[in-house]
Structure formats: C-alpha cells, structure tokens
C-alpha cells in the first residue's frame, strides 16, 4: 500500500518537475546535483542489472566461459558489456548541463576507466592481491570491472569536481537522488569485494576461492544489493522533499 502510494506520488512529482523544469532552468544550473525521478532511477538500475545479467548469461552460453574457469576473460567481458550501459545511462545525469554536453560526459566516463582501474588495482595490491605474473591480467580485469561500478558513473556525472568526489566517496554524504545512485552502488561494490576476500584463505579447496573469483562474486553481490538499496534511499529522499515542499 505504502509503496504504491509513494510510487504514484513520485510519478506525480516527476510530472510536476517536468513542468516546472522549464521555469526553473536557471535554478537547476546552480543546484549542485540534478535530481532523478524514482521511475527513472528504477529504469537506470534495472538496465544496469539487466546489462550485468546479460553479460554473465552471454559469457556462459555464447562463449561458454564463466568466472571460475576463465576469470580474467569473463571479468573483461562483463566490464565491456556493462561499460557502455553505465556510461550512456549516467552521462544523461551529468552536472552543469549547460557547460557540459552529453558527448563530453561520455568522454569523461571513458577517461574514468583507466583512472579507476589504476586506483582499484593499487588498492587490491595494498590489500594483499597476489602480484605474481600469472595473476596480473586477473587483477587488471577485476580492477576494470570495479572501475565500471565505482569511478565510471561518478566521472560521468561529477566530472573532475574534487569537492563532489570528496563529498561522495570520503564523507559519504550524497545530496540528491542521482548522487545516491552513484554513491551507494560504488560503496556496495567495494564493501562486497572486501567481504568477498574473506573466504579466500579457507582450506575448502574450491576453485572459486582463487583470486579474484570470490572477490568478484562479492563485488557483484554488493553492487546489486546496493542498487536496490539506492532505490529505497531515492524513494525516501523524494518523500522527504515532498513533505518539505508541502
């Protein structure tokens, strides 16, 4: 009941905003974060999930590879499949729409890939990822996937605004719905990866305990959970805004 109600509410809200956006365009530029309506957020999340699911499915059936047998190839495939979806979707919600075209946001997102890969790679090494030569491609491909989940959406939306990056990734104080959509999944992926590392030392001798398979599973699970959670947060955010505006 409650969720239905809020869903309708948000649709109304969305319509209201659409109509009012024309008048307050000037204000929207000043506002730090553009907002995203609940159905739109739902759509973005759904597309991300579908993209991921498709990538895993296609890897399994079309190329008949999976994380356990070919971790590095599969990770690469997942990243490649998910990357355009993420970039194209998130670039629509870029900040400063006036100065920044859609294409530029896409370019920023593409730039976020190597940076994110490097950061995640270094982080993985610092936290104990194996450095032997045979593990190098696995680590790099894992870092690539992590960058798709963490830095790429952020760089599409935020660009190079250090203050925003700091606010979202260090302080975890997202403002507005779109920032929830960046902040939560990124943190979810990181925390999931952290927990995914724990089964690795156990002596169960399962093939999935190898680096980076369990960590990748952790990442994906964390990411998915956080996507769902972010929807909840956006809903809550809208309701509070709604109450405020009342």
């Amino acid at each position, binding site marked *: 009941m409650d969720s239905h109600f809020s869903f309708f509410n948000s649709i109304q809200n969305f319509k209201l905003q659409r109509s009012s956006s024309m008048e307050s365009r000037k204000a929207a530029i000043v506002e730090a974060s553009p907002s995203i309506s609940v159905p739109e957020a739902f759509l973005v999340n759904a597309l991300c999930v579908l993209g991921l699911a498709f990538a895993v499915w296609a890897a399994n059936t079309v190329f008949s590879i999976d994380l356990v047998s070919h971790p590095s190839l599969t990770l690469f495939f997942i990243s490649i499949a998910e990357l355009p979806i993420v970039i194209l979707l998130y670039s629509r919600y870029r900040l400063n729409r006036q100065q920044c075209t859609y294409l530029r946001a896409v370019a920023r997102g593409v730039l976020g890939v190597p940076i994110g890969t490097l950061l995640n790679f270094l982080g993985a*090494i*610092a*936290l*104990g990822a194996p450095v032997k030569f045979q593990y190098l491609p696995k680590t790099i491909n894992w870092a690539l996937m992590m960058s798709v989940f963490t830095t790429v959406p952020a760089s599409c939306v935020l660009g190079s605004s250090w203050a925003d990056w*700091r606010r979202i*990734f*260090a302080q975890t104080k997202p403002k507005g719905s779109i920032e929830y959509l960046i902040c939560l999944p990124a943190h979810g992926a990181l925390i999931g990866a952290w927990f995914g590392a724990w089964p690795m*030392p*156990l*002596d169960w001798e399962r093939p999935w305990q190898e680096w980076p398979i369990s960590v990748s599973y952790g990442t994906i699970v964390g990411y998915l959970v956080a996507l769902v959670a972010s929807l909840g947060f956006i809903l809550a955010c809208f309701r509070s805004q709604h109450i405020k505006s009342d």
Partner: protein
Amino acid sequence: MKQTETTSSSAAEGRKRGKWGYIWPLWTTLLLHLLAILLFTAGFLLTRTELPYHSQCSDVSRSPCFSSNNGSCWTKPAVNRVVLIVLDALRFDFVVPSTFFAEAKPWMDKLPVLKNAASTRPLSARIFKAIADPPTTSLQRLKGLTTGGLPTFVDVGNSFGAPAIVEDNFINQLVQNGKKVVMMGDDTWTQLFPHHFERSYPYPSFNVKDLHTVDNGCIDHLLPSLYEEDWDVLIAHFLGVDHAGHIFGVDSTPMIEKLEQYNTILERVIEVLENQSGSGSSHENTLLVVMGDHGQTLNGDHGGGSAEEVETALFAMSFKKPLSSVPPEFDSCSIHQDLDAMNVCISSMQQLDFAVTVSALLGIPFPYGSIGHINPELYALGADSWNSDASQKLSESDVWMQNYANALCINSWQVKRYVDAYSASSAVGFSRDEFSRIASIYAQAENHWSHFTKKLLLDRQNNSNISVSALKEQIDAYFKFLTAVTELARSKWTEFDLNMMGIGIGIMLISLIFQVFTVLRTTKEHDGTLSSSGDSWIVNGSILTIFLLGIRAFSFLSNSYILEEGKVANFLLSTSGVLTLRQSVIKGKLLIESIGFLILSTFCRFAIEVGLSKQAATSAFMKDYTSWIINIASGLPVWDYAAEVVPIAVLILLAAWLYKASSGSFFDWPWKYVILGTILSYMLIIAHWITDSNRFDGALIPQSVGRTYIPRIIYAIALGQLLFLTFGQLFKKSNLDCKTDLVAKTTSMLSAWSSTVILLSGKQGPMVAFASIFGGCFIMKFVNIEGKDGPQRSFSIMQWSLFATCLFFCSGHWCAFDGLRYGAAFIGFEEFVLVRQAILLTIDTFGFSIILPVFGLPFLVASMYQTNLGKHFIFTQLSQMYTTYGLITAITTTFTILCVTIQRRHLMVWGLFAPKFVFDVFNLILTDVFICLASIYYFDQGREDPEVKSPGG
C-alpha cells in the same frame, strides 16, 4: 621495585590521583591474566613428566618372573640383528593390497614386495596396521616409538632447542647393553640421539622441496651396510614420501615414483638378507622391519589424530625357519585376497607396543617409561630359536606360550614399576582411584602368577593341556592389566580437563570486564575534563575499532586464518589505512602520510608473504638463521652484495636520525647519553656484521672477537642504558614540561632497547626498525587528523596494535615453534644457559611486536595535544591508552583460548592451534608485564607542573 611503588604512592597521597592510582588497574589485569592462563593451561596443555630412571639388566631379579639364565638380560633373545627401515609418512594403504579397500586408488599396490612376502610366507612375514598416537609429527613419533610412551605436547624436562631424548628408550638400552647401532637418513635421529650411534649418515630433513637427498643418502649406505658385521641394529629413515606428500599430495606422480623406488630398494634388501640367512651367515637370525612413523592425509598433512594420519603400516619379516603357527587366540589377523588371489594376512597393533616388543625380541631391558605390551604376533616372528632347548613333550606352540607368558610377566612388572614411580615423582600424577584400580588388577594377575602359573612352569612334566589353559588365563590377566594402564595413560596424556579450562576462561572474561570498566571509567573522567568531546568520529572510530577487532578475533576460529594470520593482520592494517586515507581526504590534510602508510603496509605484506612461504617450506625443528633477507638474497651476486650492504646503510641512517633527534634542545643529560650509547651500539653492530660475513675478509678485528665479544658489549651497553634510565629518573628532577619530558623519556627508552632488538633480528633488523619508525610516525600523525577536538584514540591504538602484529610476521616469525629463530639465542654466546638464551630468544621474537610498541605508546599521547595540558591530564590519557592496548591484546587472546577450547578435537590441534595458543598466551603475559614496567617508568611521582593550564580550557 615494590619499595619504590609504596613510597611513591604514599608520596602522592593527598593528590587527586597518585602514581599508584594510574598503575593499579594494570597490575590487577596482569594478575588476573596470569591466574586465568595458569588454570586454563593446566587443563589444556597436557603435560607429562619425564622420569630420569633407566632400566638395568639386574632389575629383573626384583620381579616375580623368571629371568633368563644364560647370561642374557630380561628376556631370552629371539633375534640377533634388526634392520629397521622407517618410511616417513607411510600410509596404511600404500602397503596393503587395494582389495582391502572399497576402491582402488592410483597410489595403492605400489609396494608389492611387502605384500608378496606376506602372502607367500605368512608365518615369517607379516603386515600390521600400526596405529600411532597423536601428535603425529615425526619428532614426537620417533620419541614414542623409541620410548614406548605417549609423548605429549609439552614433555616437561625436554631441553630447550636441543630435542635430545632424556627418557629411557630403546636406542639407549641397545647402547647400554653393548649393541651397536648404525643410522642413516633423517637427521632428526641424530638430534634425538646425539651420542648413541656407532656410525651415522644424517641428511638434513628441513628442505621439504628436496625429495631425494635423504633417500639417496640412505640408498648409498644401506646396501653396503647390510654386508658389514659391525652393527646389531641398523636404522634407515627415508623421507621422500613425506616430502612428496607435503609438496605434491598423495595422488601425484612424484609420490608414485617414490613408492616404486622404495619397492626396488626393499626388493634388494630382502634379497641380500635372504642370501645371507643361511646357517652361520651374518643374517642367520635377522629381523627386517619396514614401518611408517605416521600416516598422512591426501594433502600430505599430518600432526593430528584423524584415521589417515594415525594409521600407518608395519611390515616385519624374519629370515629363519618359522614357527608353525601362532596360537589362534593371539592372532588378530584378518585375511584378504589380493589381486593375484593370494591370501594376505593383515594384523593390527599399536605403535606404542613397538619399543617393548623389539626390546623383548632382542633380549634387552624394556625402556623404563614404556607402557606398551609385547605384541604376540610380532613376538612370534622370532619364535623358533627356542625349540632347541625345549623338552620334546611340548609342542612348539606351547613352548612359545610359556615364553610369552614370562615375557608378559616381566612386561607387566615393568609397567607397574613405571606407574608407581610416575605417581610418586610427578607433580600431577594419576588420580588415587585410578591408581588403586590399576594396582588391584595387577595384584590379581601377579597373585595368579606366583601361586599357580609359576609352579606350573617349574614343573614341566605336567599335563600339557591343563598347562595351556592356565597359561592362557595368565596371559589374559596380564593383558587386562596392560590394557587398563594404556587406557589410563591415554586419558591422562591425551584428554583435557574441561573444568580447569572452564574456570580459566571464566577468569579471563572477568578480567576483560574489569578492563572494559577501567577504560570506560577513565573515558568518563576524560570527558569530564575535556568538555568538547562527543564528536561523531569518536563513536565512528570506536565502532570501526570494534569491527576490526571483532573480525580479527573471530578469524581465529578457523585454522586457515591462523595459518595465514600474517596476511589477515596485514589485510586489516591496510583496511585501516584505507579508512585513514578516507578521513584524511575529508579533512584535506595528511594525504601524503596516509598514502605512505598504505605503501608501507604493502611492503609489510611482501615481507610477510616471504615469511609465510618459508613457513610452508620448512619442517625442521632447528634452524640457525631464518631471516628473510637470506631468502631473497639467493641468486644474483648483486643481490648478494646488496643484502650485505643495504642493512648497514639503513643502520647508519638510523644512527644519523637518532643523532639528529638527540640534538634537540629538550634532550637533557640522562637522555642524551643514552642515545649516544645507542649510536655507539649501532656502530658495533655494523662491526659485528662485517666481521661475521666472509665477504669482507681482511677485516681488522679477528672473527672470534667480532662474533662473541661485540654482541656481549652491545648487551652490556643496553643493560647499562636501562639501569641508567631507571636510576636517572629517580635522581633527576625535570625542569621541562610534562609532555616534552615524556617524549624524551620514550625516545631514550626505545633507543636503549633498539640496539639489542636489531642485533638479534639479524640483517633484516634495521629495515624492520626503519619501517616501524615510519609506521609509528604515521600513526602518531593520524591521531591528530581530526584536529584538537576529536582524538580518535581507540582507532589509533587498534592501528598501533595491528601494526605491531604485522611487524611480528614481517620480522620472519610465525606462531609455531619452528618459527622461532633459535640462532638468535646464540648471538654472542656459544654455550647454552637456559635462562640467558630464553631471554635472548624472547627479545628476538617479541622485540618488534611487543617491547618497542608498548614502550613507544606514549608517543601517541604526546602527539595528541599540541598544548601542554598538565601532568594529570596526560597521565590519565596514557593510562587509558595502556589499558586499551592491553584490552585489545586480551580480547584477541581470549578468542584464541575460546577457539582452542572449541577446536580441541580438531585434527590440527597439536600442529596449529596449540602453538598459536602458546604464542598468544605468551604474547598477552609479556604485553601485560611490559605495560606494567612501562607504567612504572613513565608515571613518575614528580611534582605537578606549575604552569598547568586547566584542561580543556
């Protein structure tokens, strides 16, 4: 020391809180921990006292039994020579035919020679399933095999570092009775029996990756030795199967190759013995024994009590005309058909019975502490030589039975004697009820013997049928007694006292509550004085601390995490580094430091990995030098050279840094001289290394001076520095403010310890010291990351503690006894003095992980506040820090204790959990002790600063 405390506390009377007021919770904690650990250890670490007595030939006249009268010792010798081939980690299924099992595996049927001998000559060759007692490690098993006892985890009386067996044993009895023993193979034997062998060809056993050195050495000497006449017992110990299991696992090609190689060798050995077994030849009366000391799991692990590990095989073969049959009552064998449809008879025995049975066969006194019984089937293999003097009226099996009954009589008397002696002399003997039960069983059996059987045996003209049944009765009575003793011994030496353990855990929990209470009380006091607290980051920081601590503590519940503890600690350290980085990004300061901290923890991680790889690759009990720098420096000469030069360069850097620090204005006379002394010590260390290495030949100082005197001078300087610091503190009235004073005191204390710690750690010492200085500085700076208002105390202390743990692993240690660097105990000293060497070993093991971190903790307080807040405030902070640090250590140790309690039946309990327990408990006590010492040192009774600013104002 007690005196000064009481005077100080009385001097501080009337003040708000005297020195004693800060210190007493720390001492109470120490006492509580000591009590808890003492009780728990008494219940958990099964101990057995080694008795120094030895059996003598003449002892047997005191027994009620017949002693053999033809000049030999306790029993009539049945074999003259024994060839004992020990195949390390021989699984039971390596030997028996695969039809014995539900499914044939690739590693089965690879030793067909043994099986064929047993099937073609069932009376003179036998295969036994030999069941070992845990701990199933080679050293403990060899000890058990030769002493006939049950070695426990802690055998009181075992000498430190040198594992030589002091208890009476089979090898010792051989030597005492003029038998000559030749040994080849695993050098553990020469460690256990350093002076017993006529000839020995030991080969190093610690390199697990080396499958062939020991075995090839054995092979080279085994066959020629068989033709020699100069030995009575020949021992050949092959290690290849054990190593192949450790490296490749059981189901692997190297394992199968090893087994096939053994098969060929055993074929040749049997052939040689066979050819020489004619009447008058050298092996006329020889017994061949091929046995495993323990089994192994499919992964090649052993140490615990799982069936795969304790079940090993024993093959025995005699080369003379065999006894026609063993009386069926004593024949436990089960017959199986092998692949060629031949019957193979497989019996079962306890490894415990090996020592006494072989002693009985050779006719030497049984080892004093043996509690096994003579195995009838193995004993029967040497039977036929008695026929000659037996009267013709009795069948040979009856003669054998008479002999066996007498041997068992001696056996029971010897076991009873040991039980009596053990109860009398051991601090924790058997319980009274148990003891009297055993005594009554023995009395019964002996009664039967002296009133009935003895007469029967003396009067051999009696009807043989009656005699046989009476003998069987007698033998059963002895069996009953011996079984009861074995059961009692197993329960005593392999079972835990749960009540004691429970009480210990209870007291440990009480101490935790006490510590938490103390921390909370000081926090409240602190909050009372410092008004502006309650920042969210404090709460945040505490939650993170509890989270990290909880994860670390819970990780001890699994053996895998204990095995990889270094990596886990480092993972958590890096995580805390990431969290700090996050915090520093928020605050926009100390970015370089937090990145530096992450890089440092990455370096630590590589050092830990090198250490862990070494841990996996060693099984040696004694190693002289296990610093990782040697490990790295094997290969290129450039590396070699760098490994010599870099530590020296780093040490010079450290000295320069200390010099610079000491030239600071606030370093007064006592501190300044201490630091100068340390710099001198560093120079001496460099001189020591230069003389020690063979790279710099033309050194000015002769090697002996460099080796022994320089380290001793360094120890003397360090001792002098410590005394100087203690007394300097009593006489000196500082005119500096409290905080600067604290920094000076801490720096000089650390520098006084550092020279010894670095010297003992070897070449890696300066690097680890360097890393610890950097890590310490970073953590100190992070304390202030929130600004003055929100000191993230607990998180910094947690970081400090994690870093200390990482340093333990970085400096090439791990929580196992083979992780101790025994070589460090002998730097500067050649001969062994228990206390002195133990102190040196302790300083080496815990120098970087306890001594330096605990004494360095005041830096965290000193860096916390920029302004001087007065003595009382700083001391409150310091005592809180020490309590928190102690609490963190206590919580992890409590979890280790809980986890050993839960996992006490785990197969790794002796291999992994118990060493971890010992290390953690030692770690906790040592931490507590050093915290107490540090508290006496740092909390001085000097006057309150005149210019006290009111705290928080």
